[in-house]
């Protein structure tokens, strides 16, 4: 391996491709380089999250198929014929199926949030990015906050608790996953909104909006997949 003698002294490099230079841990890189790095990293992160999601679905379908002791939704357990634990003690009565309205509303709100961020990214290329991105991010943030409230409300409205068998456990696990994604979205969309208002994306430097749009879309996919599972395969 050989080296050339291109001097480098740790200073701002000239704009190689017209995209400007940004900080990166004390080093400098073009926005295009930063964008590429962040895009690949996000793909990998989403890949890991997708595996997490797949294993959650595996858990759902595995426990549903086993229906150990009739504890999937407690369908076989009634007050007259209660399921028993290994010692013969009654451990549950009939567990009603969870209502799907809230689940659907949360999925729909997340999709709306993803569409708002997508709209902001596309429109900002034609109009004032500060106004458009802050509006898109602001409304998306509001939408996600509403989804968080609905999710918390659903916890209080469930016709079962964590101790009511495999269906109840899996359903609540799904809700937890949804809430975790919504929490991340709140953090990210708040940042997007604040930064857009401060003019951080003026001048065409909105690659970060594209990254956030991708992650928001992924969160929408997660909530839709989880909603579809609990609705279609209860």
């Amino acid at each position, binding site marked *: *391996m*050989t*080296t*050339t*003698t*291109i*001097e*480098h*002294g*740790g*200073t*701002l490099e000239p704009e190689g491709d017209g995209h400007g230079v940004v*900080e*990166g*841990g*004390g*080093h400098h890189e073009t926005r295009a*380089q930063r964008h590429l*790095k962040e895009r*690949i*990293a996000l793909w*990998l*992160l989403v*890949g*890991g*999250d997708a*595996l*997490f999601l797949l*294993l959650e679905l*595996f*858990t759902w379908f*595995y*426990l549903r198929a*086993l229906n*150990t*002791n009739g*504890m*999937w939704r407690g369908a076989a357990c009634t007050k007259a014929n209660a399921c028993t*634990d*290994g010692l013969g003690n009654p*451990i549950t009565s009939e567990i009603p199926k969870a209502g799907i309205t809230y689940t659907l509303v949360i999925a729909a709100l997340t999709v709306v949030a993803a569409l708002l961020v997508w709209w902001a990214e596309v429109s900002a290329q034609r109009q004032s990015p500060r106004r458009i991105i802050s509006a898109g991010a602001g409304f998306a943030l509001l939408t996600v906050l509403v989804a968080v409230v609905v999710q918390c409300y659903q916890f209080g409205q469930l016709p079962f*608790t*964590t*101790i009511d*068998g*495999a*269906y*109840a*456990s*899996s359903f*609540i*696990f799904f809700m*937890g996953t949804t809430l975790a994604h919504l929490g991340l979205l709140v*953090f990210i969309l*708040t*940042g997007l909104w*604040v*930064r857009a208002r*401060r003019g*951080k994306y003026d001048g065409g430097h909105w690659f970060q909006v594209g990254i956030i749009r991708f992650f928001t879309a992924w969160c929408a996919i997660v909530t839709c997949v989880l909603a579809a599972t609990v609705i279609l395969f209860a």
Partner: protein
Amino acid sequence: MTTAAAPALLEDTQLSSRAGGLYRHQNIVTGLIGGIGLGAIGWALSHQFLQGSNWGTDMVVTVTMAGWVIGLLLGIGAFNAPVLWMLGHDQTHEDELYLAGVGQGPRRYWKFCTDHKVVGVQYLIAVFTIFGVGGTLAMMIRTQLVSAHSSFLGANAYNAIVSVHGMAMIVATIIMVTGPFGNFIVPIMVGAKDMAFPRLNALSFWLLFAAVPPLLATFVLGGVDAGWTTYAPLSVQAPPAMDAFAITILTFAVSVTLSGINIIVTVLTMRAEGMTLNRLPIFTWGAVIGSALGLYAMPAFMVGMVMMITDRVTGTSFFVAAVGGSGWLWENIFWIMGHPEVYVILIPPVAAMLEVVSTFARKPIFAYKVTVGAFIAIIALSIMVWAHHMFTTGWAPDLNGPFMLTTELISIPTGIIFLCVIGTLWRGSIWTRLPMYWAYLFLWNFIIGGVTGIYLSDVPADNYFHGDMFVTAHFHYTLLGGAMIAAVAAFCYWFPKVSGRMLNERIGKVAFWMVAIGIQITYFGMFWEGFEGMPRRVAYYDPIFLHANQMATVGAYLLMAGFVVLLYAIIHSWVHGRPAPANPWHAKSLEWMVPTPVPLENFLVEPVVTADPYGYGEPEPAAPAAEPEREPVPVGSAETTAGEPV
């Protein structure tokens, strides 16, 4: 900032007194204060408000440990930049330089530092520490087993020690190469100034740091008596220590995931000009492939641990059959993680050892592309073999045949890699320095570990051996005798670059022979126990197994003494060793083209790669241009030992 005012070296930049902002006041002390403080607050609040429920104690332990992790990260400064980002602020260039350690001297090793070399050394010390803990526990296990009915530990303490020994060693071996060398060496190897995401890099390390105390806390929380595999329902019924154990795993899994993403993105996007994929050093391939497999394995670990925590803390029933769960669900999820994880451990050190073999045989890596293909084949197959750990459980007997087949298939790419190592050595001008000793030991051990693994992949043979000490001997030959010894070879190889000193080879060779002989005595003893049918994880045993156990214990003491001697050699050399030249081994890859110690952004000139890194026999590469006068920076071949082959 203008180019005219540029200093010769970035680390010589004079920063203003405001550079770094809040980071200036944050270090390991504030981290510990934050961790202990938030942990205490979590304990007080959960003790006050949650203790009354059925799972009160588990909730208290979980909240306390989670508080410790979050508080430590807050205290060390891990969340400063994300919060600033959310508030619409960006760090200045000076802040970034401060974060990279400029002007801080050795204090930067105790801070949230973004310089990949600092993070690499931090990882190295963490790995040594965890190995020290795991090794000490191993000696306690072997001491207990020196007689059939020893009262040294007692059954409960023995179980707890076996569990933490297993998990500590798994944690340490997963990061033993990708942590220190994936951080220190890989960016330089590919011609980058740093990792792709320096702050994420520092976060990965401090997550690891945060994960260790909860693991040690298990001893005062009743002990984890479910083994490192923490099979349900044992794990669901275990003392509160299990909650701390689960927090350790969750934190560690996040750390490995972030670290893996960073390594992959660094190699994919930050390679120097001319560094095509065909010219990537083989260790870089190993780090990327191991990291990619980690991205597959760690989410499974996280899913399993989240469900275990909720089973214990909120009464869900994922793994409790009485209320609709299934112990098989845990076993599936655990081994979906667990078997790929073996290759997360194995591939990076083997790839690193291939660098050693190529350098000291003065030959290109034999069948380079085939080796890379074999690594990829291993990860593809490794995700299809998990159920061979469940042959005897009764889960899906119809799948035993297919899983036996995939498991035996994986021996083919593994064998190919072995042949590539042999092919690289074949007719080479072998220069037998200390790293090569360890490489030879790897070859010996790994063939024993590999061949005995084939027996265990066979369903009828596994029905006999499963759960006995034969299995223990097999995976110790593979993971300690194979992966860890390859990692030691890599460590000895890169020690001059990392420390700036030459490792004392005389003491190192004494350590080598003690370790080499100790391994054979210890694990042949365990094979003997296994053939006689002694089960694993028992504190007391029938006297017919006595001699085999005594043999294993004597070997283990020799093995541990060997590692202690090696540690002495490392510390002594790091402090008093001969200053290392930039390229003591006359190697060809980029990390040897930079000065020692390595400057902040690695390269004083941006490298352009014009050949593969294994062109031995070709003329020496030019020394880096514009070399500054720094102590100790003897660059080039002027200070190398006379008579060394080139």
